[in-house]
């Protein structure tokens, strides 16, 4: 089935290429594999280097986001007072797409020497934070009542309930939160890189390829790289989930 889908996609691609400026699949494939390890002359970097640069920004910002979102999600779920303060704030900010923060971020962080980097980290942070927080919060708050009742029947002290019942249940939320957060963060970095001179990164690469004269094969090769990495991250994290939670 997968193979049939891929063949159909390539067929449709050729069809669209025939009537538009879209480069043919074989042209893109050629450019993609050449640029993977050979520097593209304008920016002097390979696709792998651009991807690594983007990935590094995403990982830095996401780690920062997760290290706040995960504990905050768990603690808010357990503490009603805190939840009443935190959830309205989250609900107010969450619907604003991370991309909408880009112009403001570049203005706010302008006084800093490394405005671009800080802004990009900030935007990915916004992208990764909210889905992660929501996932952790929801799971931690919805520990099955039957299991809590069971724990009470056995007169389990609060600390044991937290450690053996609540936290393991939250783990699912933490892991999906990380996976979804990274996904959104990855999309955000590409957009953030397109706004300012970043020097490297897949988003920046695509933008420059456009600016130097619509080099469509390079542009689509960059897009393909974005897709490949997004797919790999997701698959890897799903595998990790199965490893961390063998009971599922």
């Amino acid at each position, binding site marked *: 089935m997968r193979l049939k889908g891929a063949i159909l996609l390539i067929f449709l691609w050729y069809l669209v290429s025939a009537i538009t400026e879209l480069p043919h699949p074989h042209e893109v494939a050629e450019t993609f594999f050449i640029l993977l390890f050979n520097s593209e002359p304008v920016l002097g970097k390979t696709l792998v280097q651009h991807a690594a640069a983007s990935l590094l920004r995403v990982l830095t910002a996401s780690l920062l986001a997760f290290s706040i979102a995960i504990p905050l999600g768990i603690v808010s779920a357990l503490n009603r007072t805190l939840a009443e303060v935190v959830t309205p704030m989250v609900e107010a900010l969450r619907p604003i797409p991370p991309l909408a923060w880009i112009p403001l971020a570049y203005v706010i962080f302008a006084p800093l020497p490394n405005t671009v980097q800080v802004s990009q980290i900030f935007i990915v942070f916004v992208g990764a934070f909210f889905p992660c927080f929501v996932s952790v919060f929801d799971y931690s708050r919805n520990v099955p009542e039957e299991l809590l009742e069971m724990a009470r029947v056995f007169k389990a*002290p609060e600390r044991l309930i937290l450690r*053996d019942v609540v936290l393991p249940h939250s783990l699912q939320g933490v892991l999906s939160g990380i996976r979804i957060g990274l996904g959104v963060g990855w999309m955000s970095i590409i957009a953030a890189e397109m706004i300012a001179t970043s020097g490297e990164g897949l988003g920046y690469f695509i933008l420059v390829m456009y600016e130097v004269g619509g080099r469509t094969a390079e542009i689509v090769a960059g897009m393909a790289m974005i897709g490949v990495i997004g797919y790999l991250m997701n698959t890897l994290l799903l595998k990790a989930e199965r490893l961390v939670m063998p009971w599922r």
Partner: protein
Amino acid sequence: MALTVEGLKKSYGNLKVLDGVTFSVEEGEFVCLIGESGCGKTTILKIIAGLERPDEGRVDFKGVNRMGFVFQDDRLLPWKTVYGNIQFALKAMGVEDGDVVRRIIDFVGLKGFENYYPKQLSGGMRQRVGIARALAVNPDLLLMDEPFASLDARTRERMQEELLRIVGGKAVVFVTHSIDEAVYLADKVVVLSQRPSRVVRFIEIDIEKPRDRNSDEFIEKRREIYTALQASSG
């Protein structure tokens, strides 16, 4: 006397569930509470376990230091293995004794399954773990809420047979709506009316265990309970 339940009354809002339930459990006695679904049997167990408070009435224990509870749904922690789930009950009372856990696992026939997660087990096996967990605290009184209701008929009968061996001489309050199950297991059957629940009759079952489900005396007891239930639902 291990347990005396006296005049329990309980309402949820306008819904009157218990209307003065009284019965007692002797030391080492196996008592079945039988009644139609929704008659408040589970509520009685929850009150005994201290999970709910009655509006009126009281529960007195004598020589009961610890209770074990077996739920209708297994209520195992999905992220813990068979071993971990049984150990949880011990940790809850502040003990971490691996020997006890292993002994109980042997005792209920779960040897070789220590490292299995609940989702890898059949319904019967999961209930076994639930029973093992309840036994791990070495309870003086075992409360069981329709533990075999979701099992297929054959597994259910086998579990009943094993249960009698496993609980030995412990006092048990066992909730069921199966007449056959009550006659097979109980020393005394408490027949409850429809909601709001009252005790309609006590029926002693003095047939020697293990019982033959097809013997005349077994069938006679079954008929007796059936008649009492019929009369109560009028």
